[in-house]
């Protein structure tokens, strides 16, 4: 298990609203440095909103989000990013008016120690061959690799990945799984949103289960087999 000291990311009593609708009702969880942690849950449980709230991409939130003890609530997202958090959004967010290279180089470096461009092509060889293509002309899998690859350059240590396997072919899902394990080995900390807990089980240390805008359970990856019935009940699969 990772160190039991101060967590890298500590979320306490996080509440978020979209206009009048109250989406998160007090989310609590921790992510320690070097861990891969997933948020599991059905559609609408608040997983994506949790990632966006950590990143500061929602208009109204309350509670506490601390990165190494620094309180992030109330900060604009560009300042939060500069502390070393990067997001790979669910819709991937590849820009149509930019080519692959421009998409890859878009996020500014926030800290030293990010992967070099050649290391990213090492992970995702397809990207290197299509640098001049329009970003959105790539296949779904390639777009996902581009969306992950571009945040590895920035030097961010905490990566927020929102359903990176959604809608992709099994062989691509395996490749993304291998990438996540390799990133973990290189010391990245990853908070992963997943619907597919079979995939999550192959990469993660711990799983938080979300329901109706709260974290309702936590399962260590080793205990996953034993907790299958419980998870099935939560996720309705």
């Amino acid at each position, binding site marked *: 298990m990772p160190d039991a000291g101060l967590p890298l990311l500590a979320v306490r009593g996080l509440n978020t609203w979209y206009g009048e609708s109250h989406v998160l009702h007090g989310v609590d969880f921790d992510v320690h440095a070097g861990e891969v942690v997933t948020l599991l849950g059905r559609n609408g449980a608040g997983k994506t909103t949790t990632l966006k709230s950590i990143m*500061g991409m929602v208009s109204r939130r309350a509670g506490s989000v601390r990165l190494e003890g620094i309180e992030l609530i109330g900060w*604009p*997202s*560009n300042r939060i990013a500069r502390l070393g958090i990067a*997001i790979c959004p669910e819709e991937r967010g590849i*820009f149509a008016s*930019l080519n692959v290279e421009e998409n890859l180089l878009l*996020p*500014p470096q926030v800290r030293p120690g990010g992967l070099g461009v050649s290391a990213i092509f090492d992970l995702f060889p397809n990207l290197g061959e299509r640098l001049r293509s329009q970003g959105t002309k790539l296949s779904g899998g390639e777009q996902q690799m581009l969306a992950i690859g571009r945040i590895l350059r920035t030097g961010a240590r905490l990566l927020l990945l929102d359903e990176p396997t959604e809608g992709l072919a099994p062989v691509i899902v395996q490749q993304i799984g291998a990438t996540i394990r390799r990133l973990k080995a290189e010391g990245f900390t990853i908070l992963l949103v997943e619907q597919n807990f079979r995939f999550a089980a192959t990469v993660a240390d711990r799983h938080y289960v979300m329901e109706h805008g709260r974290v309702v359970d936590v399962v260590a990856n080793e205990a996953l087999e034993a907790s299958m019935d419980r998870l099935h009940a939560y996720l309705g699969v």
Partner: protein
Amino acid sequence: MMGAFVAWYLLQYLGLGYWPALLVAPIVIGLFGVALERLLLKRLYGLDHLYGLLLTFGLALIIQGLFRNRFGSSGLPYAIPSQLAGGHNLGFMFLPNYRGWVIVFSLAVCLGTWYVIERTKLGSYLRAATENPALVQAFGVNVPRMITLTYGFGVALAALAGVLAAPIYQVNPLMGADLIIVVFAVVVIGGMGSIMGSIVTGFLLGIVEGLTKVFYPEASNTVIFVVMALVLLVRPAGLFGRAP
């Protein structure tokens, strides 16, 4: 229009001629644009674009009215700089030197702007932020500041156009308003969001309008809108626009 008036003020009260005005007027008016964006426009971003249009159109009418109240609408003369006086006979037509300069200089500014937006890192931020500002900001880019500066730059370009136009049209409170409808037509024909489209269309339409003035003067005011209607029939996204 304000750019032209700044040039006129500079000459009248500070003795600064055309060349310094080409630099100073865009800076002064650009800063005015920045203040406008910070104080007023910024508050409207959460709303429908229509409110922004209403606000800026209203402001334009007010500012225009104030200038008209002060200067009347007959226009103040602004001399062509002595270096560009005269003209050349090109054989088929007579080209005043100043007009030639405006064409060359404005082409250079257009291509420079196009290069910055399409080929530089700053331009990739601008294009990306047009598509998805929230995500660009979440990568660590100060998008609100970028919007303010971009707006200021756009306003400065308009002021630059005002200074360029001053010796041709005279300095007149209505010189901007006369152009605005044509500018809308240029953007629609070129294709929304396409810089190159606006540049090419702007120059082409200028030529079309000029030729119409020579061969069939009665139609010179309408020809642009006829072209716009035809283009919209054939290519609703504009000549260079990407289909939505």
